[in-house]
């Protein structure tokens, strides 16, 4: 894998084995994220977007019923060639993840300070309490939290959803990961809070030069965030290209349907959605990257 790639997925296939047979979830997908690039993976529930994130994190490798083939290169290492403990060492340091609902992702019985300390210890096991304190406060200020003392002392339930989400973003970025996975961050929040957190996250990853894989079911959410977009349908990538190009000129039938399904702020009535069509299985469309 070339050095300027933060993530490279080659022909990744996944199936789950159960007593009733195997079900194929991913049918050989390819995906790349350059250093500092923000990429979105967009698809419906069941399309395979969240399992892709879990393979990148390496958590699915531990599941006995999962059959994974293909290559996943993160930070210069191939996930399936690593041992369980090596994969675990990558999580929270080189790869981190932000989940949909911040209040369930944070541990309810520890204060934010203790949780920050735990995360920091993954990067540096000998970190002193005072340094940890200092670095947590710094990152909290970066996510626009000014009363850091109060927040660090709080338990997650004492903070609002938007505040917890910002804490999560701070925790995810504190060890300067090479790759950040964001699985529908903020969908559990209000629109205004969601808009704020997305903006904040976009600015932060830009400053830190973090590569991001953003997973969502709504193309509208990724519009302002992503440089490049992959559209996934039933375990196959159907269209990929620079964000602007996908929005200006969607070519695959499924991408068109996804775009058409979003109600418009300017009106025009409830979108007409045809049932799943054969055209959704058309071969992948790749938009030329003009800047490359």
């Amino acid at each position: 894998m070339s050095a300027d790639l933060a993530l490279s997925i080659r022909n990744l296939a996944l199936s789950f084995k159960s007593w009733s047979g195997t079900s194929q979830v991913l049918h050989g997908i390819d995906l790349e994220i350059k250093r500092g690039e923000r990429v979105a993976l967009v698809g419906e529930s069941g399309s395979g977007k969240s399992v892709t994130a879990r393979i990148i994190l390496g958590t699915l490798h531990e599941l006995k019923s999962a059959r994974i083939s293909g290559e996943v290169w993160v930070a210069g290492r191939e996930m399936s060639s690593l041992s369980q403990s090596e994969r675990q060492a990558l999580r929270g340091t080189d790869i981190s993840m932000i989940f949909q609902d911040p209040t369930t992702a944070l541990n309810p019985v520890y204060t934010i300070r203790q949780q920050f300390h735990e995360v920091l210890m993954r990067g540096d096991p000998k970190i002193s309490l005072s340094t940890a304190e200092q670095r947590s406060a710094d990152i909290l200020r970066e996510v626009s939290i000014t009363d850091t003392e109060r927040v660090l002392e709080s338990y997650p339930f004492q903070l609002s959803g938007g505040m917890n989400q910002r804490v999560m973003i701070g925790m995810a970025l504190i060890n300067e990961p090479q790759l950040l996975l964001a699985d529908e961050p903020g969908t559990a929040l209000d629109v205004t809070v969601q808009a704020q957190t997305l903006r904040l996250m976009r600015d932060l990853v830009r400053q830190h030069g973090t590569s991001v894989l953003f997973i969502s079911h709504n193309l509208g959410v990724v519009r302002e965030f992503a440089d490049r977009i992959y559209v996934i349908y039933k375990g196959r990538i159907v269209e990929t290209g620079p964000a602007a190009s996908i929005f200006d000129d969607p070519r695959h039938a499924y991408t068109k349907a996804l775009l058409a399904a979003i109600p418009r702020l300017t009106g025009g009535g409830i979108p007409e959605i045809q049932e799943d069509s054969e055209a959704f299985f058309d071969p992948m469309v790749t938009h030329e990257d003009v800047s490359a």
Partner: protein
Amino acid sequence: MTAQPILSAHNLTRDFRVGKRTIRAVDDISFDVQKGECLAIVGESGSGKSTVANMILGIHPPTSGTLSFHGEELPVKRTLLHREKIQLVQQNPLSSLNPRRSIAASLRLALDVHKHGTRGERPQMVQKLLEEVGLDPSFANRSPSALSGGQRQRVAIARALACQSEVVVLDEPTSALDVLVQARILRLLDDLRTMHGLTFIFITHDLSVVRNIADRVAVFQYGKLVELADTEALFENPTEEYTRSLISAVPVVSTEEVELRGRLSKTEAADGGVESPGA
């Protein structure tokens, strides 16, 4: 105005005791809902929109103020008839449908409680309800866990329609669904409204949905009704700063929408309010 409103709220107020403090969740709200219209209630969490819904449904009695239905004041203790006429569809159908009951049994219960049809007719009425919401009759004997999110929401809608309901309170009916499923459910709801002459009270925080389904919009902030206007007018020229910020927070896909948002957020930028999304 013209006809008598089907539902009206007069100076509704609701307080909640939290420890020693009293929190005013809904503060002196009055509005009318006409028969057959879709009134959207929008606002952030904590704005009191769900509390209003609960008062309409009779789950919480108002601390002060009254609600009237067809011009008659709704009692604190609702009669079976009131409960039949005013129905609810919740956000998460997995928690609103009994997991141990089959789809048919859930729908049948509504018919049994409100004594619709004879015992012999009811199984057939259940089949008809399923067809009406676009579900295959073979789903009747499945449990809710064997359905997808969209299908479950269809069952919840069928149950709200099982009786001769007139007002349906929809509490974020599509926010847990994917965009494609959301579009189909919205289409279904709108068709059913025209077909049965239903009145909708549509609670949501997604203004792009509101734009396309509601006739009028009520904007709530901190328990107060800050703006109530026709949908068209509200989106073209919102008078309240808060409404503008709600509209400009909506994720959009097309250039026209970006322009609309830009136009609305211009005044904000001048006030040094919410940062404009394009910045």
